[in-house]
């Protein structure tokens, strides 16, 4: 049975992270839209699959996984063979390479994600709920994010990608949040330093991401 991806259809957010992995790994999937506006993710039926009531989640022949980063890792693990595109995660027996990958993965969720989320919530989500963006607070959040990206610039002067020298899931984890900033005229992903700019351009020019931006998330079968 074809894998089912439940989530939102945009090239934005956690569902987009999983969609990019599916495309990179040439994994066929059926996309099932979950309309957050109608509270479809909070129904009892949905919560049986996902007790936290969030999207995305996948159903792989009856096997259910939620949390976008966990889904991504599962897909990379299950389809580690050469017929399925880039590995996206070092083999566990290459202990030090794997550790550098895990370091980068942790940096994304502990340092990058909380900072970028504050910017996104202030700039984009508040107006969606009829509130006004506090420009002073927003400037503060952008400054915080810039500080994180300055450290990224230092890291990326020594390794090509955020998980090591190969493109990996760690880089993909950033596409749920990073690309949206430019839509609001916030260019920190390319203006903070030359190494971050080089890295970010590499990530968003991947054919998988270009396709998602152009078409949104759709079933591949």
């Amino acid at each position: 049975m074809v894998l089912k991806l439940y989530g939102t259809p945009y090239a934005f957010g956690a569902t987009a992270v999983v969609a990019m992995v599916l495309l990179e790994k040439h994994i066929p999937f059926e996309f099932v839209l979950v309309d957050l506006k109608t509270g479809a993710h909070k129904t009892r039926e949905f919560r049986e699959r996902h007790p936290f009531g969030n999207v995305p989640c996948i159903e792989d022949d009856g096997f259910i996984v939620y949390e976008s980063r966990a889904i991504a890792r599962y897909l990379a693990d299950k389809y580690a063979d050469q017929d399925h595109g880039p590995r996206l995660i070092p083999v566990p027996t290459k202990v030090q390479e794997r550790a550098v990958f895990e370091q980068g993965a942790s940096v994304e969720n502990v340092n990058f994600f909380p900072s970028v989320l504050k910017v996104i919530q202030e700039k984009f989500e508040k107006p969606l709920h009829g509130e006004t963006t506090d420009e002073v607070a927003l400037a503060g959040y952008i400054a915080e994010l810039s500080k994180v990206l300055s450290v990224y610039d230092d890291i990326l002067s020594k390794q090509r990608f955020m998980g090591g020298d190969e493109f990996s899931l760690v880089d993909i984890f950033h596409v749920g949040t990073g690309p949206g900033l430019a839509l609001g005229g916030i260019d920190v992903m390319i203006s903070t330093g030359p190494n971050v700019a080089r890295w970010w351009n590499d990530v968003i020019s991947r054919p998988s991401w270009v396709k998602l931006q152009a078409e949104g998330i759709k079933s591949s079968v």
Partner: protein
Amino acid sequence: MVLKLVGAPVSTCTRRVATVLVEKKVPFEFIPIDMSKGEHKAASFVSNQPFGQVPYIDDDGFILYESRAIGRYLCDKYPDQGAKLVPALNDVKGRALFEQAASNEYQNFDPLAYRACFEMIFKKRRGLTPDPAVFEQLITALAAKLEAYEIILGKQKYLAGDEITLADLFHIPYATTLALAGTDIMSKQGPNVTRWYKELSERPSWVAVKDGVQSMSSY
């Protein structure tokens, strides 16, 4: 050469790493950093940990930071030593469920627990005024997440299945600090979370490090 753990003796993240070192029976030398003197922002520290955060390890010249990455590294490097804290490499479904539980910890539990502790404990240490209203909001949000934990832990013993994993252990430092912050939520949510939390807080590896990390030369 013995592994060096560089951190602060009672820092949550330093103790998170120390717990795993003890679980895996890995000898280590503890090198304390005095954060009140800004030693974590010194050039010699930042050259190893560019975010200026504790802890990091120096394993015979291999430098690694981020406590959860260090914990995973120790399990990868010593798969047959000490407690088995991650599923086997060829157990693809088991590993997926482990990663799901691990993601719950760093995406759903930690941001709220950390900010609650920051509001009532760390702010005071920096001479700032805690805001009880912010704290209450965070605890309410955390309680909603723990409702899902209560369901999960009613079906299985631990967060990834019936065996303890890093995903459970990684909760301990902030879960236990919440009591100091002024909430007993970890023992009030429901019988399943209470059972799980009690067991974790009494885990010998945590008890060995909770009052301050020290070098361990043998086990």
